[in-house]
């Protein structure tokens, strides 16, 4: 028996739970970047908790909380530029917020209004994909198109641990590997797919190691460490843009809330597990780290929080002030040019 190949799976943590940085991996970032991390997490969290209460009040529909996953989402999103493309699942409010997607639009989407996914000019954020993992091949194709056009851009593709069990994950990553598509595959491993724990999702030890199945780079990062996520994603984005091909990053994090507002996680998961992860939630360590650097004070945080709440308030007001969607739009947007039958139906539906 000969050994024909060897692999190692690495895990990156930059800032530990006490807020101490590992100097061997600490990137040199301007202070403003840490502030940006902090402020975006606060904003995303404010958005998220408002969305949860809007749902309870019946003002939006079912909503999937991102609580606990903010570092994974925001650390990765901020590693990309506005010219890059984002392909997401349904649990990426943090990514949308980080990229400056108008929050009123985001709310409209969760109100059950398709206009919420009408991405504004200048941003390249794909509409959320509800069928889990089915968006992954799109990222591959977008990446291939970037290469085709010679555009030095990358795609950030988001999906969960559950998604990594599906065939489209496999086909999407494999094709990306073959064509060296400039895609950063960001698995948000939040340990649960509704009621199925990571350990029952696959018998593999990590999601990161699947990178080797596709001949691409792979790494697991501490997904509650925004700096680690940012560092890994930035390196992957740079490599992608330089023609070095795709990367699979497993952000090892945790879904602190229920799966969605329709779910009751207490049916299937242990309170102690949640409490344990609660201690590791991303803002705690970022706060400690920034405090040590002299970047954090309570006053600073209060200011950030107030500003975030204001922004969210404004967004809610704006979203709710919008005229209701037109029935005719159902038909109008089905095709660019409507058939005679569709035109007839458009009329019947008030168009």
């Amino acid at each position: 028996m000969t050994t024909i190949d060897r692999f190692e799976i690495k895990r990156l943590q930059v800032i530990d739970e006490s807020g101490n940085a590992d100097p061997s991996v600490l990137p040199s970032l301007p202070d403003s970047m840490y502030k940006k991390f902090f402020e975006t997490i606060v904003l995303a969290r404010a958005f998220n908790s408002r969305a949860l209460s809007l749902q309870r009040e019946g003002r939006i529909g079912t909503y999937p909380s991102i609580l606990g996953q903010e570092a994974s989402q925001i650390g990765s999103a901020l590693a990309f530029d506005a010219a890059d493309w984002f392909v997401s699942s349904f649990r990426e409010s943090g990514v949308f917020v980080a990229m400056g997607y108008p929050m009123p639009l985001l709310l409209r989407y969760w109100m059950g209004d398709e206009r919420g996914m009408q991405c504004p000019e200048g941003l390249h954020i794909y509409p959320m994909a509800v069928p889990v993992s089915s968006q992954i091949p799109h990222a591959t194709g977008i990446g291939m198109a970037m290469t085709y056009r010679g555009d030095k851009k990358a795609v950030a593709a988001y999906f969960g641990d559950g998604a990594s069990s599906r065939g489209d994950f496999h086909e999407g990553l494999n094709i990306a590997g073959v064509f060296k598509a400039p895609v950063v595959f960001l698995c948000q491993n939040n340990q649960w797919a509704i009621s199925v724990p990571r350990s029952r999702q696959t018998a593999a030890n990590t999601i990161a190691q699947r990178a080797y199945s596709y001949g691409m780079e792979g790494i697991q990062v501490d997904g509650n460490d925004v700096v680690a996520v940012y560092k890994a994603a930035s390196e992957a984005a740079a490599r992608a843009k330089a023609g070095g091909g795709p990367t699979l990053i497993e952000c090892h994090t945790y879904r602190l809330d229920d799966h969605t507002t329709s779910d009751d996680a207490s049916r299937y998961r242990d309170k102690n597990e949640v409490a344990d992860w609660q201690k590791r939630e991303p803002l705690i360590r970022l706060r400690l780290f920034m405090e040590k650097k002299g970047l954090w004070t309570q006053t600073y945080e209060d200011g950030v929080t107030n500003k975030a709440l204001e922004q969210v308030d404004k967004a809610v007001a704006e979203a709710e002030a919008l005229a209701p969607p037109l029935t005719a739009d159902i038909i109008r947007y089905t095709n660019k040019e409507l058939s005679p039958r569709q035109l007839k139906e458009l009329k019947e539906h008030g168009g």
Partner: protein
Amino acid sequence: MTHKGKDVMALIKQNMVQAINAALSQELERDPDVVIIGEDVGRDGGVFRVSEGLLDRFGPKRVIDTPLAELGIVGAAVGMASYGLRPVVEIQFMGFIYAALEQVFSHASRMRSRSRGAFTCPLVIRTPYGIGIKAPELHSESSEALFCHMPGLKVVMPSSPYNAKGLLASAIRDDDPVLFLEPSRLYRAIKADVPDEPYTLPIGKAEIFQEGKDLTIVAWGAMLHKAAEAAEGLDAEIIDLLTLKPYDEETILNSIKKTGRLVIVEEATRIGGLGAEISAFAAEEAIGYLAAPIVRCAGPEAVVPMARLEDEFRPSTERIRKAYERVMAY
């Protein structure tokens, strides 16, 4: 005690979720080859709680929580079925079965034919379909027509707790694959008398939901109730299709012969819907009896919208009523 013309021991009031749960439970009890398999069907009891309590009662060998993999689940169930088990798959929403269509179309439906009977596929796929729960995109599909076009596959759609329980038991005992489409809108909408003991209802038979002589209305699943609502005051005969494939030609034909008019009410987008098939059947076999055009009242040619507009997509009572009136004008 008697219920729907049969002697029964006890009746209980159940909604459709409870009735389906009872059918699953009783079939698991009756036949050790029955297993439940799907995403979140065990510990969580299913996202609609349809399989609630079954894991505790029958254990994880028989109530199997799987990875997130529709094609793999249906594919594995095909394998289980040909080994001799009777897997009952849950797909969380009909919009997520599309990933498994190759397994449904190219394998489950064809196994018997392909192997000339050497291997069979006694498999049930249960999935909630349809508009009405204000859920996100792809949680409101009613694409039953796709499945009705596939030889080898049966398609069943209950409209009440009673027929849900009896038809599901029949589907599980059927030696061929059955797609069992549950109207999510009706899951908890109706509580009705359901026999406590196990019973079956025949696959392939429609039910006269309401007798009448002026107009035949064919509907199925959640739309049945809307179709009936809109028919108030008319002497309409309403046929609840129940089995969409093979549908009950005889019951439809007899009714048309009596009424001379046919309206089909469906939730799906019109073009290529099951309504087209029913209409075409009538246009071939009963045109001589028809006094009026056959009218389909269906969804427009558009993607099923999200919550805000979903009620504008399904035919409204008014639209349905207009369709009846159009036909009654002849």
